[in-house]
């Protein structure tokens, strides 16, 4: 069986289980929307302060909601020993990592879309003009966030203080992703062209590449006790 097919099977299982209950997606979406709504009451739509803080607000919503999903996705695997079931299957553990990370990235994408739509309405932003750039930024930022998050949630899920451990481990490592994504988003919303936000995109792509590789290789050691 090809690695790609195994990856597809792992992602299929995660999507099927989640779409059946929508437990994780609904809590992630609710959290992200609440963040946007709360900040909407703090800033005047269209003001300079809004333009400056907007991208940060957006990524706060994405990352905190994403963290809820990252945590739950591994907890589901551990609760019934399913992670051991996966470990006992003839599947490279790097592929298991890619499967979990892809599933997590899809869930984060799914909450990014409505959150961004609501953000655009509340903060009076014309997102059509930078939509292609925003799509690239969201894609690269989410991949990096989901990759590192999946590895670290696999580490934290076996600790007694797993709810606290994940953000403590995750955010310091994700600083380059969040900073680059916020700055690139600010540029895209301000109407900058590809070359002007290119530096931030390169940092995001580089981070994604390095951490996908590192997580792929180290996931095996994280899973084993």
């Amino acid at each position, binding site marked *: 069986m090809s690695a790609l097919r195994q990856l597809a099977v792992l992602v*299929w299982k995660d999507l099927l289980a989640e779409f059946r209950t929508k437990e994780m997606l609904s809590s992630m979406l609710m959290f992200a929307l609440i963040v946007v709504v709360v900040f909407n009451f703090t800033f005047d739509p269209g003001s300079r302060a809004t333009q400056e803080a907007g991208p940060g607000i957006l990524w706060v919503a994405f990352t905190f909601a994403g963290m809820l999903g990252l945590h739950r996705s591994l907890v589901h695997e551990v609760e*019934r020993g399913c992670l*051991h*079931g996966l470990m*006992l*299957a*003839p599947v*490279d553990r790097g592929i298991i990592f890619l499967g979990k990370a892809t599933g997590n990235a899809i869930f984060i994408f799914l909450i990014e879309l409505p959150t961004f739509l609501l953000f655009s309405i509340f903060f009076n932003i014309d997102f059509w003009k930078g939509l292609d750039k925003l799509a690239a930024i969201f894609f690269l930022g989410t991949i990096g966030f989901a990759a590192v998050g999946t590895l670290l949630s696999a580490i934290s899920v076996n600790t007694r203080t797993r709810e606290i451990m994940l953000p403590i481990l995750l955010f310091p490592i994700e600083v380059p992703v969040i900073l680059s994504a916020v700055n690139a988003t600010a540029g895209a919303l301000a109407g900058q062209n590809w070359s002007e936000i290119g530096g931030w995109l390169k940092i995001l792509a580089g981070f994604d590449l390095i951490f996908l590789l590192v997580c792929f290789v180290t996931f095996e050691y994280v899973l084993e006790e």
Partner: protein
Amino acid sequence: MNDSPASSPAIEVKNLVKAFGTFYALRNLSLQIAAGECVAIFGPNGAGKTTFLRLLSAISRPTSGEIFINGQSLSEAALSIYRQLGVIGHQSFLYEDLTAEENLLFYARLYDVPRPSNRIDEVLSEVGLRERAKDRVRTFSRGMQQRLTIARAMLHHPSLLFLDEPYTGLDQHAASRLTSWLSQLRSERRTILLVTHDLEQGLMLADRVVIFLRGQLAWEKPAGEIDRHAWRRLYFDLIAGAEPRHGGEA
């Protein structure tokens, strides 16, 4: 069914040590299990039985020592060994929000089982859950989940079976089905490693009995040579404080 060369045992463990910090769960344990043999492992809680199975399944990494399955080193050929391995552990490895059929389909695809739908029908019928194939696992009783766990473990026709307390949660009817199923597996010459606290059941099923104490192989004997009337007393005498030793009278 067994892929091992005629000369190599199905399972060979050499000087296995597993330490958690300063606590030694397994101490220099060596054991050989022949292909087609059924070995029952007994021992009190904390004797290292489950740790031993976890190491054999490569869920946990040994501190030192070597494990060979069908002549292949577990650390070097884990993926090909997993195809030959069926495990029933303390947990079901089942996703509660998927149906019985979806759970089995997921594992069948991972194990690349040919004609998965047919095979799923087959194993569900064997464990008496065909009528519940479309129901979510969440709605199953503990005994039904255990039966589905058995179906999952058998899905890919494993030649080696590691069973850790497989009778847990089963009612009498399901337990007797499990016993007859294990007897059938024995007759098919599959290698079985059974960890259990049920002294009579384990002795009845096994070709050889092994007792672990404090992370060491304390006692072993072919099941056929054990006096069934003295067995329970011997076991409790041994775990009551006897020093680790090999052989002994029963």
